[in-house]
């Protein structure tokens, strides 16, 4: 994993000290809230409904065990004992007092963490495939490139006052787990005809009020040219992106209004016009230096199969189910990728207690080379666990309430904080998720339903990714009453699509029975059990499911 060099460490420490002074001046009344607000936002401090919220960056969702322990300590000492994973692979603490935040930032700096660029109109935390470096599906580990982008973009003077916030995601696997097509820029690592590694560049994706699927403007940019090309995209956006209307300021609007072809031409022209002196020289030695931080850990040479694993599955059916649902193939024989569900039935999706953080850190230390990943679907991952160790890992998770076998199933719901926390919300989202989880609690039934992604947002800002849920749920306010608009057919993978609104909104209490009817319809009409909901939707169209949704009316 990447380790800070002296410059990184100095910058983060200095920033924490600066913020301590700013907070002191605010508390003494020496600066006004208007003066302070941009400063706190630059350090990830938001004001929510009933408390401040601190958002901490987890670069590309990769964490060390000691960093997780620091989160646990912060949760215990400064918060109410828990944290919340976000859909940008970050963590939010919902109850931190402003007066304590400088101390929290100091504690974070001690483990190479910070809250810089988790807010504001800058390039935010670059996100990635949570299985990076572990899956056999990828052509390379995308994380060195996320780190290179992080170093390039952090405090980049030209891009610290963009028209709007800017989000980049990178993947190197054909199956897209990083939702790159709904990012401002999505980078898909590819090989060209010569066998060189580079990037397909996708721009203009995004959710929110005006959702768009990104478009490819370049099939291949070589590694050595990546930063120059990104800089060209950013310059075109910075020059032509709208600043007069917050709702039209994202790059997706510019790409859509300009037309993808024309936008691509503007970028190419900017790319060509970059003078030699401006080019960012990215020598191979530097790429190699950063890549070395992400070198594969010291895997043991093991057989493909593990008799201990097979025996444990034979004697413990719940473990066998969990192993089938929550683990994925590893590139190294004898190892496995473990998804730790943070969606136990009936609990707020993505919330983890300080105790669960400690347990996860223990497991990472003992069984996964100290590494943990946070997923944009609000779960955790132990990326490198030996098959031989899976049963012990499972039993420890089970004891900590972290062994729900629902990865990618109907109760593995993405859910934003909604009106229970968020100052911008129109409606609650967590209670809807909880009710749905209770409705579909039966694990056999979930298993039978198969992969189905429900995503819930409490307002049109779409932090809960409802636009790309197989079933999306958007909370709206109608004269003080919560209503929920249902969409079908969204997806954020390699076939990314924006969901279509099914019809009139539903009351909260009507959502679970309505979705139950939809699911029963799906089970009735699927061609075979392996046909997923999203595939059935594609094959049959939305009408049968819409009919089921409103069948009670």
């Amino acid at each position: 994993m990447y380790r800070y060099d002296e410059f990184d460490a100095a910058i983060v420490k200095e920033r924490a000290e600066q913020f301590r002074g700013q907070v002191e001046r605010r508390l003494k009344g020496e600066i006004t809230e208007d003066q302070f607000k941009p400063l706190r936002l630059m350090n990830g401090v938001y004001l929510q409904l009933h408390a401040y919220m601190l958002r901490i960056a987890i670069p590309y969702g990769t964490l060390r065990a000691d960093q997780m322990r620091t989160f646990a300590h912060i949760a215990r000492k400064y918060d109410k004992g828990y944290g919340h994973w976000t859909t940008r692979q970050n963590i939010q603490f919902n109850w931190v007092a402003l007066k304590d935040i400088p101390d929290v930032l100091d504690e974070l700096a001690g483990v190479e963490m910070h809250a810089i660029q988790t807010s504001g109109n800058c390039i935010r935390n670059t996100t990635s495939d949570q299985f990076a470096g572990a899956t056999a599906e990828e052509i390379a580990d995308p994380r060195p490139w996320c780190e290179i982008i992080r170093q390039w973009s952090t405090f980049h003077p030209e891009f610290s006052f963009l028209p709007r916030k800017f989000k980049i995601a990178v993947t190197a696997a054909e199956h897209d787990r990083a939702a790159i097509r709904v990012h401002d820029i999505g980078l898909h690592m590819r090989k060209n005809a010569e066998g060189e590694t580079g990037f397909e560049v996708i721009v203009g994706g995004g959710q929110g009020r005006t959702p768009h699927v990104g478009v490819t403007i370049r099939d291949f940019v070589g590694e050595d040219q990546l930063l120059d090309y990104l800089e060209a995209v950013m310059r075109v956006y910075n020059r032509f992106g709208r600043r007069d209307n917050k709702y039209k300021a994202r790059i997706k609007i510019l790409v859509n209004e300009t037309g993808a072809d024309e936008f691509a031409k503007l970028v190419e022209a900017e790319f060509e016009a970059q003078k030699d002196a401006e080019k960012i020289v990215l020598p191979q030695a530097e790429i190699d230096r950063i890549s070395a931080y992400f070198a594969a850990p010291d895997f043991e040479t093991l057989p493909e199969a593990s008799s201990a694993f097979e025996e444990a599955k034979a004697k413990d059916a719940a473990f066998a189910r969990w192993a089938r649902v929550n683990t994925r193939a590893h590139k190294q024989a004898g190892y496995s990728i473990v998804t730790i569900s943070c969606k136990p039935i009936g609990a707020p999706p993505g919330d983890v207690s300080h105790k669960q953080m400690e347990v996860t850190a223990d497991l990472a230390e003992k069984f996964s080379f100290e590494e943990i990943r946070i997923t944009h679907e609000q779960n955790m991952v132990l990326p490198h666990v030996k098959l031989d160790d899976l049963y012990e890992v499972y039993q420890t998770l089970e004891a900590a309430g972290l062994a729900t076998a629902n990865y990618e199933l109907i109760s593995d719901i993405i859910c934003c904080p909604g009106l229970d926390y968020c100052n911008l919300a129109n409606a609650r989202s967590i209670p809807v998720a909880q009710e749905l989880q209770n409705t579909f609690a039966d694990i056999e039934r979930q298993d039978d339903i198969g992969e189905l992604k429900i995503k819930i947002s409490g307002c049109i800002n779409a932090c809960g990714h409802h636009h790309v849920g197989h079933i999306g749920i958007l909370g709206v306010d109608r004269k003080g009453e919560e209503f929920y608009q249902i969409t079908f057919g969204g997806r954020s993978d390699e076939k990314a699509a924006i969901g279509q609104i099914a019809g009139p909104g539903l009351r909260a209490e009507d959502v679970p029975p309505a979705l139950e009817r939809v699911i029963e319809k799906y089970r009735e009409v699927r061609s075979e059990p392996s046909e997923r909901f999203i595939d059935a939707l594609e094959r049959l169209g939305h009408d049968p499911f819409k009919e089921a949704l409103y069948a009670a009316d």
Partner: protein
Amino acid sequence: MSSVRPKLGPDVPKVITAWDVATGATVYRTQSGDWSQDLSDAETVTGEAADKALSAAVTDETRILDPYVMEVSDEGGVAGRETLRETIRATGPTTHPDFHKAERGVINA
């Protein structure tokens, strides 16, 4: 600066609410111009008195931020179009019952 919330007619009973600067906690303005975390301590105001109370709150920004007027019932409980939002601000998230502040008895809605 004050938060923008729905407009309320002059005769609607209201209290001034804001956030405590140091902690971010929800607070309500009392008759003495101080701030309390208990809605039952809040001063209910209407008409010009409400405008004055809000203006005074806006200048109190060492202690609080983003003050605004919220609707209350004649008895001083949460009321009106934003009842749910203000109940959550007063009592905490509906999803983590452990965090409820209800034991303070602030909710009379």
